[in-house]
Structures are given as C-alpha cells and as structure tokens.
C-alpha cells in the first residue's frame, strides 16, 4: 500500500437519493445516454441519404425516434439535476457539430424547463416524462434560429438581392412569423408523439429486458 496515496477513504456515507450530489454512475449514465441520443438522431438523418423521397419521411421522424432513448434515460433519472446535466451534454455535442450557439443555449433552457416538469412529477411520473420530452424536442428548431431571427438580412448578406429581387421577395413572404410558429409547433407535436412512442417501447421492450 502506497503511503503517498491521499487520505485513506474510510466509510463514506451513501449519498441521499434526492440531492444534487452526482454519483459517478449518474454521471456516466448521462454521458452514455447523451451519446446514444446523438447517434440515433444522426443515424436517422443519415437514413435520409438513401433517397430524397425517404428524406421527406425521415425529417419529421427524427424527433419521434429520438424519443426512444430520451424516454429510457428519463426512467433512470433518480434525482434532481440529471435532466439539466443531459442538457449540458447535448448542448456541447450540438456546438461541436457546428450548430449555432443559440441552438446550444436553447437546449440548456429547454432542459431546465424539463427538469422543473420532472420535479413536479417527483421524477416518477410517466406523463411528466412525456411532457419533458415534448418540451425538449422543441430544440430541433435550433439550427434555424439565426436564420429565422432575420431571414431578410441573411438573404441580403448573400448578395442575392442584387439579381434576384423577385426571389428574395417571395422568400420574405414565405419565412414569416406564422411559418416559424408552424415549424415550432410541428416539432413539438412530433416530440409529443416521440414521447408516446418512447413510453410504449419502454413497456414493449426495455422493461422486459430489465433495462428500464
């Protein structure tokens, strides 16, 4: 036994279940689910590469499918802070794949809201989990945020205005506040469906397998 080792660990109390203290297993659990979530989203996006026609199907599919790992993750949330930590993990990944910083920020904010919803359900309610995921899935709007904030400015910055006034005009008409709201609404609806699908698959597969 080395005497340069730090203070010998004697009996350390097991942390209380509902504290902000993360055990090493909690941290690792969040990390693994963040990576799984990310790769599921990525893989479904790649499915779209098969053909453009498939892409039309897979685009709304992404928030639905991503509900499967996210809902499984929520069953493993044992105490406050884990949903928020998941948000930090996914925000970091979001930034790394080049999505705008606003998107990363949205992920963290939505996760904090989700944390509140889960807390209201005492981290045990299935419906709280479904609503948490529904809210969270609004992040899929993230990549579009800088564009949606100022579509006209973006088009102008490409210099398209100079030779495509007509086109720029029609673009401005297309990208309006109602359009943006429609996009948010559709991802949230897909997110809700994803929450339902996720919780259905929990009982169909993961609970039987002892994974949930």
């Amino acid at each position, binding site marked *: 036994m080395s005497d340069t080792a730090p203070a010998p660990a004697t009996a350390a109390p097991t942390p209380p279940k509902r504290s902000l203290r993360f055990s090493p297993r909690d941290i690792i659990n969040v*990390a693994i689910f963040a*990576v799984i979530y990310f790769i599921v989203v990525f893989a479904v996006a790649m499915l779209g590469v098969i053909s453009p026609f498939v892409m039309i199907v897979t685009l709304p599919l992404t928030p639905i499918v991503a509900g*499967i790992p996210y809902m499984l993750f929520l069953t493993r949330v044992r105490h406050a802070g884990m949903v928020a*930590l998941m948000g930090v993990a996914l925000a970091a990944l979001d930034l790394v794949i*080049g999505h705008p910083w*606003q998107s990363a920020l949205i992920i963290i904010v939505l996760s904090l809201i989700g944390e509140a919803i889960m807390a209201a359900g005492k981290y045990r309610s299935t419906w709280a989990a479904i609503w948490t995921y529904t809210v969270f899935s609004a992040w899929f709007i993230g990549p579009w945020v800088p564009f949606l904030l100022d579509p006209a400015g973006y088009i102008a910055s*490409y210099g*398209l205005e100079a030779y*495509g006034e007509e086109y720029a005009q029609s673009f401005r008409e297309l990208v309006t506040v109602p359009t943006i709201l429609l996009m948010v609404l559709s991802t949230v609806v897909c997110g809700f469906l994803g929450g339902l699908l996720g919780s259905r698959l929990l009982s169909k597969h993961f609970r039987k397998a002892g994974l949930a």
Partner: protein
Amino acid sequence: MTPIDVDGTRRASALAVGVEAPPRPRGLDPRAAIVLIVATSVVIMQVDGVRWMPAALVLVIALTMWEGAWRRLVSELVTVAVLAAFAFWLPVVWQHPVSATLGVGAAYMLRFVLVAAVAAHLVATTTPTRMSAALRAWHVPRPVAVMLGVMLRFFPVVANEARAVLDAMRLRGLVGARGVTRHPLRAVERFVVPMIAASLRGSEDLSAAAILRGLGSHRVPVPLVPPRFGAGDLLVLLLVVALVTATLLLKGL
C-alpha cells in the same frame, strides 16, 4: 447535420503517440479549443457572418495541418469548395429560383461546416483524461467536467454498436428504401432498440472499470501531464488576432 469522422480521427491521434517519449499532446489546449469553437460560432452565425468565413477557413486549415490530419484536410477543403460554389458561384451563372434556393441552403450549411471543422480539431486531438483535466482547471463543476470527457470515450463504443446493428439488419434484409418508407416506425424500432440494448451492455465493463479506478469520484484528480497553455496555443492565438484584425480592416475599406 455535419458528418465528422470521430472514429477515424481518434485513431489517427492515437497512432501519433510516441513509444518512449511521454506524449506531448498535439493540438490546442482543450480550453483554448472550446473558446475558439464558441467564438467561431458567434461570429459566423451573425447576419454578416459571410465575411468571417475566409478567416474561419484559414483557422481550420492551420489547425488541421498542425494535427497532420491530411485526409481530413482534403475532405474539409472539398466540402467547403462545393458548398461555396453552390452558394456564391451557381446563383451568379444561373439565375433561377432553384439555384437561389440551393445557394441559400449551401451558404447556411457552410456556416455549420466551418464551425464543425474547428470542433473536429478538439475531438481529434483531445483524450477523455485531458479534456476532464482541462475543464477542472477551469473550475467547471465535477459532473460536467467528467461527463464531457467520458462522452469522448463512449462515442466510438456506441458508434461501433450502431454500425454492427446496421450490419445485422443488412444481412437480414431489413435495410432498404422500401421498408423505411412503408413502415418507417417499424424500421426505426428495429434499429434503435437493439442499438440501445447493445450499447448499454457494451459500456457496462467500461463504466465499472472506470468507476473502480476513481473516475468521477469526489477525489481531486491529478493528471500526469497537467493542462498547460503551450507555444502552439500562443501561435494559434496570434493567428486568430491577425485574422480578426484583417477581417475588421477589410470591412473598413
């Protein structure tokens, strides 16, 4: 979404480690890299982000050359060239709503690609241990510092499981445009369920061994190679200052 060859780049960086000499990490200090990613994202995502693109491209080329990741450099340059052609050249030679739509899309994608290419440098050059140590030196809370490091390690594990499940599906004839469009949910369920189950199983040993060896515990880790701001970081910083100055001056003209 922008593809990054996480696996390949990690492999390349692992091979670069010398036999006898203690590994002198190539690439930016993770903290410097994180600052650069965020800074690039902030300037590029502005409405007039286009004029920051040349600066970002120079930075990407410099970082990738420093790493010696020539394959990635080529794929980055090709991607940027193709997107730039669609964004800035095609609409000029062919004025049509189609080319304009493609152009706007490509220009928007170009922003993502440039930020992702800066981030690829971080992912390729840092190790889980180095990442966590750097974040701790920044006084990032323990759960976040440990988690971000662990995620780097889990990526190849989960990606490998996902690939294996896709292989298994291919052999069973479960992959194909027809199946996906006809029963999209069923196709997806058949991929996602085994992939999650296999990933959780595949990461069990890794987690157990890491936790037993103190990862994520309440002890304060002491990295063998302490995170340090090195000469390379200084050079990149000078380059960044030069690029920012140039971009600002060019606007004034």
